[in-house]
């Protein structure tokens, strides 16, 4: 692992502990952990994790609605269907910087890749809790193939892309571990991995929409469109861009000491730049959604209750954020752009929940009663979100993500 002198090798465990504790002693480190945020987080985990245990002890029936009509609940509606488009951060940032040559966004690449990697990792965690026999999760890859299935494609791609993103992020891990030689290999793969990432993302982001094409008559016609794979792919682009804005905003506020001057001074202009790109893509998406209605001639449905809900989604949660982003960009205000970005993220979550849960089985009696998640399931989701944040912060505290390691300058990339 480390290529410093052999004489130092036997002290490696000690040095590794030192890295984990960020140079502090156990006592010092433990003290820094006692913060109001951590205490609240601990309480949530103490409630949520036993409930995950309950799922593996008494079955999904103990924590979810366990409905035969609604096989997918918020565990997947939130964790997979909303989580994956918001994890498009890695491929959009890497493409912008490495393929399209927008070098000035370099300070945000690693944050994008890490956000993406963590998003996929946690999508898999939600999946492992939800599926019946999680230890068989590799079956589509090795045991029994169902290539007519869109989910077969999703399984392969999510697994492959998780690996690709780990490789994309590995330079940061290797810098943290001071492994110069392995890092050089990792950096050499950057372009290939970026291209692989775009291909995989194009396919599985759209596939997550295409999954529902198999259920005509169950998904409401306003959301069931031949174009749904395109909608999902395009929205993952601005979803990724807006998530980079959101996550960098949060980091600049609460992890300021982990960021370097380059990151902090460039953040506002870069945010405006990302907002510009997001606004354009989002406007394209808005037009595509209208074309979707026109293509299926669903105009009449806009007058129904579900039509109003559709209008709420595309006007209040797509068009309004587009306007906010545009105003922010015109005024050069990172603050306004950030508002727009958070709003756009809410819009993507709403869209994915609409597709996978809210309008799924819209014509069954008692529909609205059956889609409200039980408390236990909501608590499981809350605890996983909390764990996600804690792990994310753990990495940002240690590895060079918001800052550049002075020993490994940018020219190497």
């Amino acid at each position: 692992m480390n290529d410093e002198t052999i004489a130092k090798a036997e002290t490696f465990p000690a040095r590794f502990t030192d890295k984990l504790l960020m140079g502090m002693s156990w006592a010092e480190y433990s003290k820094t952990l006692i913060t109001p945020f951590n205490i609240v987080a601990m309480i949530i985990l103490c409630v949520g994790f036993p409930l995950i245990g309950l799922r593996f002890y008494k079955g999904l029936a103990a924590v979810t609605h366990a409905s035969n009509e609604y096989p997918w609940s918020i565990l997947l509606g939130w964790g997979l269907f909303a989580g994956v488009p918001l994890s498009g951060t890695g491929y959009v940032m890497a493409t912008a910087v490495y393929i399209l040559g927008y070098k000035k966004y370099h300070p945000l690449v690693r944050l994008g890749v890490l956000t993406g990697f963590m998003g996929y990792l946690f999508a898999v965690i939600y999946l492992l809790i939800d599926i019946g026999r999680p230890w068989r999760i590799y079956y589509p890859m090795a045991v029994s193939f169902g290539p007519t299935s869109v989910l077969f494609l999703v399984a392969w791609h999510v697994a492959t892309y998780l690996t690709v993103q780990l490789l994309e992020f590995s330079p940061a891990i290797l810098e943290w571990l001071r492994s110069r030689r392995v890092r050089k290999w990792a950096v050499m793969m950057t372009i290939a991995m970026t291209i692989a990432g775009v291909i995989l993302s194009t396919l599985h982001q759209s596939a997550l929409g295409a999954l529902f094409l198999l259920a005509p008559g169950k998904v409401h016609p306003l959301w069931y469109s031949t174009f749904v794979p395109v909608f999902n792919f395009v929205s993952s682009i601005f979803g990724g861009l807006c998530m980079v804005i959101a996550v960098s905003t949060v980091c600049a506020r609460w992890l300021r000491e982990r960021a370097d001057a380059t990151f902090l001074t460039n953040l506002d202009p870069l945010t405006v730049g990302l907002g510009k790109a997001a606004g354009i893509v989002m406007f394209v998406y808005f037009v595509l959604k209208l074309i979707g209605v026109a293509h299926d001639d669903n105009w009449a449905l806009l007058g129904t209750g579900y039509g109003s809900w559709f209008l709420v989604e595309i006007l209040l949660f797509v068009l309004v954020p587009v306007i906010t982003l545009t105003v922010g960009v015109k005024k050069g205000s990172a603050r306004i752009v950030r508002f727009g970005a958070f709003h756009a993220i809410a819009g993507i979550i709403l869209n994915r929940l609409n597709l996978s849960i809210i309008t799924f089985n819209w014509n069954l009696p008692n529909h609205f009663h059956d889609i409200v998640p039980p408390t236990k399931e909501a608590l499981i989701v809350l605890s996983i979100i909390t764990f996600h944040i804690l792990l994310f912060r753990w990495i940002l505290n240690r590895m060079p993500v918001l800052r550049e390691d002075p020993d490994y300058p940018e020219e190497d990339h």
Partner: protein
Amino acid sequence: MAKTTKKCPSEAEGMGNKAHVEKEAHVEKEAHVEKEAGGGKKGAVSRREILQVMAAAGGAALIGSSTEVFAEGKFSGWPDRRGMLTDLTECVGCRACEKACNQANRLPEPEVSFDEKSVFEKKRRPTASAYTVVNRYPDSKSSDKPLYRKVQCNHCNEPGCASACPVNAYKKTPEGPVLYNADVCFGCRYCMVACPFYVPAYDYDSALEPKIVKCTLCYGRISKGGIPACAEACPAGAVTFGKRSDLIKLARNKIRRTPDRYIDRIYGEYEVGGTSWMYISGVPFEQMDFPAILPEKPLVEQTKGFLSAVPLVLTMWPALLTMCYAATRNKEGKE
């Protein structure tokens, strides 16, 4: 061997009796054909299999165009596949089929006995412990007598569940039944999302070995020449087992001879590419909660367009992106 021994239902009128005789003749005939046809089923290749081969070839992009050629070939299903015909005008709601199914498949004891009629107060669906259930509906034609509908897997010709399954756990057998293999299933439940008839049930109560549960069309019995337990048990002659093509003829004859009794439609003849289990009814099917807005094409057609774009993206994207990268480098070189 495939014999239908049916008691005459009390309320069946003269025409109904004729239909029964006729049906028996059909079923007998079918049994003979079955013997002779034994080996001749292998020639047919399903679209599903072809798609599998194509998708396996994934990387080779230009195959995208030939997928079209192959997939457009007409496959009208296994020629000798069996099926069932439910005559909804005959069903008396006795639940004998539920009981016979429960026993034949060694399913758990029900909470309330099969003689209990109060279960009709709620609409039920197949569950992890019941392959089939009977529901009651008011008859829009006569107010004094209700209608009953038996619900179970319809054994589609090209099943949505099979198209959905990422581990190929479902199989449409040449004999007709759609079978599920729990040994490869990891419990994603996409089949339940895809099934247009809300059939596959999942045993959510099992923590570590949950599986999908659904009707097997008594595959074990019919492959030995028997008939499904529910059809055997039905005292009203509402459920008939036979070769699907014969059942369609039988249904047409019934509708033609007693047009007042039936609406002119066989549910399952064309829905989602046709099903092995079909229905004839005296009232519009929507009134008995049959899914009304289903495409006539098999469900696999809904995702075919998307899946055929996959190899194109896999091959063209790397080329396009490398070109973008090269263009950027080139521009930087000039500056």
